[in-house]
């Protein structure tokens, strides 16, 4: 819809390597840089952050932590993220179309996050330099673009001006334009541009991004369309369920708002679309949400985790586990683009794990330390040989 269709498809088993063989082999080589079970084991045994840092020097992160004398969780996150971004940029520079456009799609998500961060920060009056330092490195715009985001005024024409002057040249511009169009159509007479919350803008932009990405992948065809289609559907459903869950207790849950506003946030792709999302529109509280999710077997078990009290695991943890299982499957087949998306997402999960472990060590909460989802683990629940159906 907004992004033009790819000029050529990804290529099948015998032609993929012409253009993308090198980059695919690169990213598969980077698979060996993920931390193994033994690394995680050593790190959870550490008592201080210095021990933790020592263990890190034996993994692939040795160069990243070498320049940091005193390791803190946030410093660790920055260093690990920078390493992932360097690897991603290396892949992006070696990529040929249509892989280049595919990799750009992965970065659009972070661009949306950055734009929202800048807007939110401006509205609460924070300094632009501080905000730019906090932006996700994969989604950076030009310096001038980012500095002009805070100059817009949160007035009736504020968002329109913001789009026309700043965002129209960026890749996320089309998503913003669609959002404005939709709000103008549905908002009617009320001054929707003033009252709309930042979270709703972000959910709408992510929705358009997922739909655009899914359309692009299905035009690529072949194995890529199959694997990415599945991954994005699951992503869209996670978003839909989270939007519904987070809306309980906010004005978005009022019967009047549900149909007009909440429904517009659900992406038009996914296993839950269209039957499930139309049912989710009417959901008012957690029991009704549970009843709707019972109808979809893949989500009923995740919902069970949340409904069961959430003391051991939260619903976010259940979603992360399911995501890691599916993303690892993307590495199983060759000659498709899914590995690139899976690599970025699994690296993100690993960084989350590292930050969690280091936070637990810092705060001395050793009993919580094992609540992370390891990547490519031999002990993963879905890899256990017992209990096969």
């Amino acid at each position, binding site marked *: 819809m907004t992004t033009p269709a790819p000029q050529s498809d990804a290529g099948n088993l015998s032609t993929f*390597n012409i253009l993308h063989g*090198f980059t695919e082999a690169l990213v598969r080589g980077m698979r*060996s840089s993920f931390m193994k079970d033994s690394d995680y084991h050593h790190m959870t045994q550490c008592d201080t952050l210095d021990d933790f840092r020592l263990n890190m020097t034996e993994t692939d992160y040795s160069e990243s932590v070498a320049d940091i004398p005193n390791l803190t969780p946030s410093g660790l996150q920055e260093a690990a993220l920078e390493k992932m971004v360097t690897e991603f940029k290396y892949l992006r520079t070696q990529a040929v179309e249509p892989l280049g456009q595919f990799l750009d799609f992965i970065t659009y998500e972070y661009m949306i996050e950055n734009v929202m961060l800048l807007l939110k920060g401006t509205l609460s009056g924070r300094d632009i330099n501080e905000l730019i330092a906090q932006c996700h490195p994969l989604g950076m715009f030009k310096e001038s673009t980012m500095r002009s985001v805070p100059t817009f005024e949160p007035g009736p024409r504020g968002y329109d001006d913001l789009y026309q002057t700043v965002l129209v040249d960026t890749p996320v511009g089309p998503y913003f334009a669609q959002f404005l169009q939709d709000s103008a159509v549905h908002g009617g007479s009320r001054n929707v541009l003033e009252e709309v919350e930042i979270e709703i803008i972000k959910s709408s932009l992510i929705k358009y991004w997922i739909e655009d990405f899914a359309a692009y992948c299905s035009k690529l065809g072949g194995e890529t369309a199959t694997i990415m289609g599945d991954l994005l559907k699951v992503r869209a459903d996670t978003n839909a369920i989270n939007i519904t869950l987070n809306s309980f207790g906010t004005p978005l849950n009022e019967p009047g708002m549900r149909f007009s506003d909440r429904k517009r946030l659900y992406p038009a792709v996914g296993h839950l679309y269209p039957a499930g999302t139309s049912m989710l529109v009417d959901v008012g509280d957690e029991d009704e949400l549970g009843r709707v999710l019972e109808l979809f077997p893949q989500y009923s078990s995740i919902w069970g985790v949340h409904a069961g009290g959430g003391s051991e695991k939260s619903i976010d943890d259940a979603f992360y586990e399911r995501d890691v299982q599916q993303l690892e499957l993307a590495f199983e087949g060759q000659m498709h683009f899914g590995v690139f998306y899976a690599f970025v997402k699994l690296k993100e999960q690993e960084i989350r794990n590292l930050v969690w472990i280091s936070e637990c060590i810092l705060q001395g909460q050793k009993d919580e330390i094992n609540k992370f989802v390891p990547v490519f683990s031999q002990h993963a629940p879905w890899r256990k040989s017992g209990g096969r159906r």
Partner: protein
Amino acid sequence: MADSTCTSEFCNAGWAEILTHMSPYGYANFGIAFGLGLSVVGAAWGIWLTGASLVGAAVKAPRIRSKNLISVIFCEATAIYGVIMAIILANKVKKPDEATYFLDEDWDFPGFYYAGYGMFSAGLSVGLTNIASGVSVGIAGSSCAIADAQDPSLFVKILIVEIFASALGIFGIIVGIIQSNSCTFPIAPLE
């Protein structure tokens, strides 16, 4: 179609006449060209399939560089089969001792045509099988390089897959040699 059939003695009677009246020298030399050309296409296809993955996987795991050149060597072997067949066939093409305008009446026409057709099909046998062999060795070699970079014990096991794939090319050259074995071009009329 009957209306447009030409009845003059200078028109041909369709594809059947064209194909049967083509010179055996033409058939034989096209066979040599197909044999060599298609084998080289297959080998080249296999080499870039495996080479691209080999180069990329060696960035993070440099130890795989030398071992995985075996995959490239297997692909190269299919091109060698094509060259062998082409040389064998090219040596069988002989020109007549006397350069006459028309061939004599007691020329060995059966043997003449047998040689032409035999060498054409021998070339096709080798060429087409080597395309298939080259592509399959290439894809297997690409996966072999990537797998070896992760786990060195997988190399020998995947190499066995490549050996079977490369056997396809050997089938082609064996049959090709049998087909062209008794093909000889006559060089003089039968006594």
